[in-house]
């Protein structure tokens, strides 16, 4: 009923392509997030599902019906907007019942449904207020009630929490998850906030430049990003990237080499690759002796420390000339590395340190195409303690 399928959907505006050959298969009852930077085409994709925008090419299906050219009113979808979009000239009751009244429901049925929807979003007793007499959070609830009151097959939510303050946003996230559990209806949720996507969705569809980059459950996107874009976009702070090439001994870059047998991963020597490693997969080595293979040790100097409370972000300089650019969180930098350590770690700025990488969590990407080549150059071994020590000693 509420499954949504996009087949080779594209949208062109004059000479700009907003969405390029998008294929999506969303199952009934799924909570799916369309995530990507602003201008990536995620909102256009949602508008095409809603019927507010008609695709230039391709087909859209909701349930088993093709709806590509149907107007929004005939698609059985409901939508919550970023700017909330309550009708300012109607009170809460009229806002919620707007769609039902358009469909000529009888009065009692409308009343019953509005009551029920108001109950779900905890708006009882506010039905006679005007939108401008309510707080941001309350207005957002009205918008949600307006969406759920029609029992739509699909909910579309276009950054519904973007205009709320941080505290309320986190609270509403939980509410939305509860709502999804209660209603068991497909929710398609657009956001540019990857954290929001990670915490709420069953699957994340990462979109960039109008193209679908990856659609997978949050942890898969996090652990096995399909390409450089996804790897850099998902996760905060972003993954470290180092450009280098594959030699007969493994990965080689200006400051860091990682040994492996290219043949095992099916890569030819000489290929330009980008290595990615997340900050939490870089480990501080207290006792150098624990690292069995000295060539896997990386010497660095700590630069800036950012204590976050539950962890400390450490900017590492891999060479003398390195300069930490705090603004740049996504780009490739061959002479620096971001590491996350436990909050009780004894570490200071400008200190010489030795670190190792968790080899099971090293990602390799083809620099030319950006496609992932491998996630981990060896399988993680289930042991306790820092993988940087134990895992290495197995070698």
């Amino acid at each position, binding site marked *: 009923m509420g499954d949504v399928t996009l087949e080779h959907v594209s949208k062109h505006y004059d000479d700009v392509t907003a969405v390029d050959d998008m294929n999506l298969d969303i199952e009934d009852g799924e909570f799916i997030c369309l995530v990507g930077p602003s201008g990536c085409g995620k909102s256009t994709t949602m508008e095409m599902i809603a019927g507010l925008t008609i695709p230039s090419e391709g087909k859209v299906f909701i349930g088993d019906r093709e709806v590509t050219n149907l107007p929004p009113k005939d698609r059985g979808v409901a939508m919550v907007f970023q700017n909330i*979009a309550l009708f300012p000239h109607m009170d809460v009751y009229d806002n919620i019942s707007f769609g039902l009244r358009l469909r000529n429901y009888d009065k009692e049925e409308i009343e019953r449904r509005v009551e029920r929807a108001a109950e779900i979003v905890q708006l009882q007793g506010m039905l006679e207020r005007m939108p401008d007499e309510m707080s941001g959070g309350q207005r957002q609830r009205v918008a949600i009630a307006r969406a759920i009151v029609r029992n739509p097959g699909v909910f579309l939510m276009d950054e519904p929490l973007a205009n709320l303050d941080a505290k309320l946003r986190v609270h509403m996230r939980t509410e939305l998850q509860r709502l999804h559990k209660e209603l068991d209806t497909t929710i398609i949720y657009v956001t540019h906030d990857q954290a929001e996507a990670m915490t709420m969705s069953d699957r994340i569809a990462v979109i960039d430049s109008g193209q679908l980059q990856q659609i997978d459950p949050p942890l898969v996107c996090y652990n096995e990003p399909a390409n450089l874009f996804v790897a850099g976009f998902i996760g905060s702070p972003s993954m470290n990237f180092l450009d280098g090439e594959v030699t007969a001994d493994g990965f080689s870059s200006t400051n860091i080499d990682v040994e492996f047998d290219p043949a095992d991963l099916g890569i030819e020597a000489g290929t330009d690759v980008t290595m990615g490693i997340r900050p939490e997969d870089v480990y501080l080595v207290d006792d150098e002796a624990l690292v069995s293979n000295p060539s896997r040790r990386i010497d660095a100097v700590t630069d800036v420390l950012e204590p976050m409370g539950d962890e400390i972000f450490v900017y590492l300089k891999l060479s003398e000339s390195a300069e930490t650019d705090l603004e740049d969180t996504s780009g490739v930098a061959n002479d620096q590395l971001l590491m996350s350590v436990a909050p009780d770690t004894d570490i200071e700025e400008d200190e010489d340190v030795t670190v190792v990488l968790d080899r099971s969590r090293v990602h390799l990407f083809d620099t030319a195409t950006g496609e992932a080549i491998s996630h981990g150059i060896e399988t993680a071994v289930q042991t306790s303690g820092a993988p940087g020590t134990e895992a290495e000693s197995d070698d």
Partner: protein
Amino acid sequence: MASETPGAGIGSDDPDTEQGPLGRWVDSAIKNPDRVYRAMFYVAMLFFLVTTLFPFYWLLVLALTPNNLIANMGLVPKGFNPEVFIAMFERVPFHLYMFNSFVLGITTTVLVLLIASLAGYVFGRLRFPGKGVLMLGILAISYFPPAAFLIPLFELFTGNTAISIGMVTISTPDLFNTPAPMVFPFSALFLPLSIFILTTFYGQIPDGLEDAARVEGTTRLGALFRVIVPLSAPGVATAGVLTFISVYNEFFFSFLMNNGEADSWAPIVAGILKYQGQFDTPYNLMAAASIVGVLPVAILVIIAQERIVSGLTAGALKE
């Protein structure tokens, strides 16, 4: 720079000087230029008030003076004859002409608001090729003189225009002495102003509200009339008031597109002109009818002055 406080100079006259009042005033004016400025301001304001309002007062003077006493009038009425406001209706059925003016005004206003709402929605909210050219075209047409339209329109509405469709040639119906030959030209004449006012207002409604209405189940037109138009009520009111006043005030087509009789939908133009009799000129009735004829628009101006001001400026300064 002198103090900005009004009246700061009052009481600052030096009691020791032995000048006359004028000398003292000049003296303090030099010390305090704001005073001169304020004096000039009030003089100018008084001048404008007198010049704009005197003609109305003159009408009242003439209306209240019995007609046989109207000669070499001064500033006050010679006599007091309020019955003139009854006599004017006996001489000419002025109430019927006013009724016609109201009907023409309201019909035109409704027609203009409807058509301009659709056009304003298109120009304010849609993107399509040819938009700029069409807007300029509509603007340009509204500037042509009514005289340039006169003959063909007269022919068209008197049933003298033949339309050939293939082999069949039909004449247009004779609509002279119905409201049509006035309502349609009025509508075309005053449509552009309303289009521009409504384009501005409709363009300011956030996209999200229209999208929300459509997802909730309206058509595009439904969203226009259920959400955009109600939210633009001030703009619609402005366009409506301006259109009504414009029609009520129009002369050219009001004068030429009917035979001047009240039962032929002639508006107040013909009514006022009817007082010029063949054998006498009842100045007092003319003045009384002018007063009665002005009242509706004067009341409208007092009630809706904010709307009128914003509409005139928006319509003129936009594009």
